[in-house]
């Protein structure tokens, strides 16, 4: 257990994950501060999602350490926690927004039930209070109140994604992992969702790690950027710095590949 007082929230060092002989991600290290949004960009197959799954405890890394600073200020290794602790952490202090909302929602349960699930999981036993909280969160993610008893399969893609965000944020997490939260949405819905996300992150002081292949998304929402290629981090730095003045050949290629309308 570490007792130093540096303010980082999540720290990864030497994180590697191999699939047999193939590399998922290799020797990734960084520190994430509270309230900071980190974007991981790269092409398909560059190891972004593997890295995100390793960081969020959903995938056991082959080597390396992920440490997380608990609410009491102690830093604990994510993979040295017991499974019960890790799952508890994942549904209280963390959020995970899936690319496909189907993976993150219970499609056969109403929107209110989806938002309330985490509250009930941590011991909420007052129906009125759970429903009031669910209504409040639906309002914050711009879902009309009269949709609270509708099931997510009656929702549009953008609404599902917003519902998923509400479901994750209802317990007041400090860190949210997002796996391509805006892909599959059309540009106007995407812009609204990003605007909403940016507002929520700023209001709640959330830290977030966002995996995306869309540099515009990264530019809009993130403070810091990591460019990955073939499982390795090839460049990292402030978002504007990396995007305006890419140093590595691959980052230069990536920035140059963006289509301009």
């Amino acid at each position: 257990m570490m007792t130093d007082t540096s303010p980082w929230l999540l720290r990864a060092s030497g994180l590697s994950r191999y699939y047999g002989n193939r590399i998922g991600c290799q020797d990734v290290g960084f520190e994430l501060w509270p309230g900071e949004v980190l974007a991981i960009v790269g092409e398909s197959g560059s190891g972004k999602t593997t890295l995100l799954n390793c960081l969020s405890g959903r995938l056991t890394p082959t080597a390396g350490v992920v440490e997380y600073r608990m609410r009491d200020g102690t830093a604990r290794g994510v993979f040295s926690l017991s499974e019960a602790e890790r799952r508890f952490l994942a549904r209280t202090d963390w959020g995970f927004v899936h690319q496909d909302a189907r993976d993150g929602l219970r499609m056969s349960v109403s929107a209110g039930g989806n938002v309330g699930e985490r509250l009930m999981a941590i011991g909420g036993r007052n129906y009125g209070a759970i429903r009031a909280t669910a209504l409040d969160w639906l309002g914050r993610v711009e879902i009309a109140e009269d949709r609270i008893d509708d099931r997510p399969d009656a929702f549009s893609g953008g609404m599902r994604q917003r519902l998923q965000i509400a479901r994750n944020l209802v317990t007041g997490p400090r860190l949210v992992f997002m796996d391509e939260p805006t892909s599959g949405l059309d540009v106007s819905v995407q812009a609204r969702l990003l605007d909403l996300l940016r507002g929520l992150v700023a209001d709640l002081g959330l830290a977030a790690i966002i995996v995306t292949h869309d540099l515009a998304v990264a530019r809009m929402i993130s403070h810091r950027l990591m460019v990955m290629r073939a499982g390795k981090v090839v460049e990292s730095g402030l978002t504007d710095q990396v995007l305006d003045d890419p140093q590595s050949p691959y980052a230069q290629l990536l920035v140059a590949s963006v289509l301009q309308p």
Partner: protein
Amino acid sequence: MTKPRNEKLPSPSWGGVGGGARSERERAQRPAEAVRPVAPDTRPTHRGPVGCPPTPTLPSTTSDVSDVAHLDKEVGNSRLPAGGGRSDDAMPPENATAQGDTGAGSPDIPYNFAYLDEQTKRMIRRAILKGIAIPGYQVPFASREMPMPYGWGTGGVQVTAAILGPGDVLKVIDQGSDDTTNAVAIRGFFARTAGVATTTRTTEATVIQTRHRIPEKPLAADQVLVFQVPIPEPLRFLEPRETETRKMHALEEYGIMHVKLYEDIARHGHIATTYAYPVLVDGRYVMDPSPIPKFDNPKMHRAEALMLFGAGREQRIYAIPPHTDVESLDFEDHPFEVQRFEEPCALCGSSGVYLDEILTDDRGGRMFVCSDSDHCEETRSRSGEAA
């Protein structure tokens, strides 16, 4: 004689022995006198206790089966050494007819006591003991095929078979009633295969196998209640993955159970789950109490009797030991409530009991009567004496 229809050899997948196309063809090629009807095989076919399943037990025409005779000789092979085979005196005589011909109620049945072999019963008893040690935990067990279809109480029958002794008195109820097909069939099954006394009286029984009800009369410490369970996993309809539900039980992640109740309230304004109402056993495991009405849930709380649950198809056994806390899940502002009935039983006049709606004609006539037939009869006979 006609030419065989098919000159080609049959496909290998049809098999070369004992029937199929080849034997058909050979029969066709044989001289006519060889195709005489085969005489029925009269040799005894018994090779052991499980060599031949009995014919399904038909419902007895008389409703009172409490006078089935005890066996006058010792049955069962528990005194045989394991793997030692059967002793000669336990073998059926050479000229014994097949089991199906012995007729219902015949006591000299060459099966092991209570149908299942002793190794199976030991395996089931181990599962039961583990279930009692961890109240509400679903213990996997190697469920056997029973001579009844899944859904008819194969799990309950196996548990009953494992705990039944020659001195037990068995009562079987289905939806509270002693005279429905399922109850009559299972009672007849054990009367034949174990030769135990059966009864319809709740107080007289030592083992009560039940489907969908707990008797109205509180059970005593020397009684065992065996439930037939179709789906033992309370989380199943919310989380279809077995690996995940096991993990949720292990880590006590039961928030999703309240999601189900939340959905009920959101949709209906109240908790609309009326049967198989989830309970928390001993403050640890969430358990499905089998499809009993939630009216019966409070009867499980700190009950005197041992309660065993057997799910045959799902291969799970679980238990509530006596004096165990059983708490029905609810919300602070929507507390657990049992069903209430406006009128008393139309036959015996009892109130505060669970009633069944009986249609009496096709013009909308109906009456509400006790679901527990023994309770109803007893109340009526008592009021008859008083009058």
